[in-house]
């Protein structure tokens, strides 16, 4: 464990002049860093990491939608789409699970550290690459990778470390998953507000952002990545 310096606030990273050079490097650096995370040998990982690989991912998501009274047909549609879509042979690695603008510590030279490992689990590594390209984590910017970069740089950085070149179809698949995940986070926030676990205005407000996730899901499952 070490203390690192840097900025993690998305709007500052996307707007401040002092991060201009960092923004240009960041997508490639994110690809490299994800490559390094995914190459950590499984036997070095702490015991007890949640396993979301293969069908477990869909089972967990279905359980969560059932817990919340199946109130969103769009989230169900997204889950069905993910479950029924054929995928390449399964890989199983450490997945950060929340690798996005907001959880990246950045200075003028680019990426310094990766924060917030609470959602780390075992699963398909490409999940992390799709996640950082989710619309909700672009904060309104047109740039697809975290609001700061382009797909090609992210993928090139990843390939430079792993030798693996994910396709845009792979990214698209996991963007759909990221939109579903955001919807499920909204449901979870709503639950925390309602059951008194955290009855704050913030939780109540995020619980109301479900329709953003639904818009993204519907856009994604009818087309390719933008």
């Amino acid at each position, binding site marked *: 464990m070490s203390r690192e310096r840097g900025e993690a606030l998305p709007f500052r990273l996307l707007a401040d002049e002092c991060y201009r050079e960092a923004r240009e490097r960041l997508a490639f650096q994110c690809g490299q860093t994800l490559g390094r995370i995914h190459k950590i040998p499984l036997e070095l990982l702490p015991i007890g990491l949640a396993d979301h690989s293969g069908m477990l991912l869909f089972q967990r998501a*279905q359980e969560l*939608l059932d817990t919340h*009274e*199946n*109130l*969103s*047909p*769009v*989230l*169900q*549609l997204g889950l*069905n789409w993910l479950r029924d879509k054929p995928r390449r042979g399964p890989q199983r690695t450490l997945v950060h699970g929340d690798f996005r603008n907001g959880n990246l510590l950045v200075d003028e030279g680019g990426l310094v550290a990766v924060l917030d490992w609470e959602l780390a689990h075992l699963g398909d590594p490409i999940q992390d690459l799709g996640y950082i390209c989710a*619309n909700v984590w*672009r904060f*309104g910017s047109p740039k697809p990778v975290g609001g700061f970069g382009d797909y090609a740089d992210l993928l090139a950085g990843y390939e430079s470390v792993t030798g693996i070149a994910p396709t845009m179809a792979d990214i698209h698949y996991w963007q759909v998953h990221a939109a579903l995940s955001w919807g499920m986070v909204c449901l979870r926030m709503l639950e925390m507000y309602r059951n008194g676990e955290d009855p704050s*205005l*913030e939780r*109540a*407000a995020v619980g*109301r*952002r*479900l*329709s*953003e996730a*639904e*818009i*993204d899901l*519907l*856009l994604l499952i*009818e087309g390719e990545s*933008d």
Partner: protein
Amino acid sequence: MSGTDSIELLTAVRQFLREEVLPELDGFKAYTTRVAANALGIVARELEMGAGLAELDTRIACTLNLDERAGPVTQQIALALRDGSMVADERILSYLRQRTLHACAIDNPKYSGLRQARARWTQ
């Protein structure tokens, strides 16, 4: 009803929070006050536009022969998609698109995905 209506009251409180309270605050309280003002905006828009959601639900219930008394139409469709008794054909997709457009226009009219979705799904 007489006097100031609900939307006017919400608008007035919202403006008070934004213009009178917010400039006095910083940090987390300023952020939360912005969230509070936004939340009032959602309620005001729902009062104005919420009936549109109910209309869309009633229309699709009619088309699909669903009984609205059996529970929310959205939940009935979600459960039918879940157990495979319904497939997402063009009628259902079109309903889901229009409903989500309408809901997001209430919840967050500035959302970037909403602009894109409007361009694709409305003529």
